[in-house]
């Protein structure tokens, strides 16, 4: 099936304009997830969990079953769903505030139980929807609405490396960090998402893909500069690649 622009239609993605800011990474991440779902032909088995944050209305774009969850709680909600519907494919889509701050306990214990779900962790080093406050992944020295002179490790602590932290847990089976900063990286991001779903389909256990994603609005950069910022600044603290593949 082709759409009006003669592009191959993605069945899992609704053909509607998205509300995201210009250059936002969510649009790319949403599309990649939907492409992978189509390619694996699992749309009718999908149950997604939309996060609190800019992507909360992801269900307006995703054309499969979705539930909201309270901030930080998607891994617990996913646990409940997957245990009741073990043959369905369950994933959470969470930002850095959601997963790495308010929901740290939930993600660690979900991974540690080896829940057979997939997690897509959008790391843009900032709180997007609430107006650019410091995130648990905000880089040292990065200026935000709540770190006006830059993140200070004495005051604010260090950016949290979720992949490396979760890789210590035997329940976590596949963990990779990717970026949406170039065509090449985007293709790798898609391969990682597919592998995460395959890990779940093969009943291997917990999988997580951390996605370094641009937030030009709150970074006060142009979309093109934001992509460069990921490559120049973020990847040196958050190195790309497979962190764990059991």
């Amino acid at each position, binding site marked *: 099936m082709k759409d009006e622009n003669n592009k191959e239609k993605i069945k899992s993605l609704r053909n509607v304009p998205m509300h995201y800011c210009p250059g936002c990474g969510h649009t790319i991440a949403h599309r990649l997830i939907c492409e992978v779902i189509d390619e694996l032909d699992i*749309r*009718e*088995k*999908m*149950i997604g969990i939309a996060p609190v944050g800019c992507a*909360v*209305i992801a*269900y307006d774009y*995703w*054309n*499969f*079953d*979705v*539930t*909201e*969850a*309270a901030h930080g*709680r998607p891994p*617990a*909600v*996913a*646990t*409940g*769903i*997957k*245990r*009741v*519907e073990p043959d*369905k494919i369950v994933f959470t889509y969470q930002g850095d505030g959601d997963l790495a701050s308010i929901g740290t*306990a*939930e993600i*660690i*214990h979900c991974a540690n*139980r080896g829940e057979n779900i997939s997690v897509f962790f959008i790391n843009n080093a900032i709180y997007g929807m609430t107006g650019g406050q410091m995130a648990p992944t905000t880089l040292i020295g990065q200026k935000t609405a709540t770190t006006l002179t830059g993140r200070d490790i004495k005051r604010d602590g260090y950016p949290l490396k979720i992949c490396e932290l979760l890789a210590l847990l035997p329940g976590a089976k596949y963990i990779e960090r990717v970026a949406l900063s170039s065509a090449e990286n985007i293709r790798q991001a898609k391969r990682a998402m597919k592998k995460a779903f395959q890990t779940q389909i093969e009943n291997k256990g917990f999988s997580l893909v951390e996605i370094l994603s641009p937030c030009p609005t709150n970074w006060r950069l142009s979309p093109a500069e934001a992509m460069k910022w990921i490559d120049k600044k973020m990847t040196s603290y958050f190195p790309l690649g497979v962190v764990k593949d059991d």
Partner: protein
Amino acid sequence: MNNKNSRRILVSGNEAVGEAAIQAGCTFYAGYPITPQNELTAYMSRRMSETGGTFIQAESELAAINMVFGASAAGARAMTSSSSPGISLKQEGISYLVGCKLPAVIVNMMRAGPGLGNITPAQGDYFQATRGGGHGDYRTIVLAPSSVQEAFELQILAFDLADKYRNPVILLGDGTLGQMMEPLTLHPTPYTLHATQKPWAVTGCKEREPNVIRSLFLKEGVLEEHNKKLQKKFAEIEKKEIRYEEKNTEDAEVILVAYGTVSRICQAVMEKARRKGAKVGLIRPITLWPFPYGMINKLADLKKKFLVIEMNYGQMLEDVKLAAEGKSKVKFYGRGGGGIPQEEEIMTELLHFSLS
């Protein structure tokens, strides 16, 4: 209710509530240890493995209620249980359950607070249970058993009401009810389950349009419409689901009003007072929300006095006063922090009130 095929067993309130959940078709339990309801969690651990259901000891109360949210979203009959401090932690999840119109059963075997308090029985969570408890405008149905048998029966009803109204239901007991053992009559025929279809559940969109479970409504006026629908549902519950027990109110001059554990003491006081010739009655609300305002209001018209007895410092008291609308006298006696009003204490209050 008894017949020759009935089976009588001796169990604690916690175990009775657990068995009732299994009988009601509950297939998912998540909980976190807290006294005085630990026997219920342990019971569910055993029974879920026997019946093929899911038991999860969650990392926190927050996680437990959100696991229940997920299981309920996927269409299962799901429950969690805790005691007062743990129920405070669950309030976020309960608000989301209501907002998303998801059924769930939450058991609160209350202990004394505030704060960590201690593990002795109390009724200090009445406001929290009957006024919503979390953020936003909402209500949860609150069922208050006073015996092990009734705890069993109300727990089954809780699942039915939760599914019927797509709303969380709270079974509100206290440490005494949870811990004490009493005979429980189990009936041989399986309890009739409402074979509730849940076309709204997220189960994968095979051969249907995708389902979305949400409590977020951003467009102007849509959230207000959503709230109006919730309020309409609450009004329907207030109309249809009020339950209470009424004893000797017809000729009573003073009516004791009490629920749960302390209502049993009030029953004994009433009987003793009656034997001495005092015209004393008893009202025992079984649903704390919806509260039996109407029947108390009618008795207030007849100038009957109400003596409210609670294991707290006066919470249901406010509902009785609202019901009486100032038309008759309302007095209160209660003890909190684990103190339980004793027969003699209630009798003394009753005597003073009768003479006033």
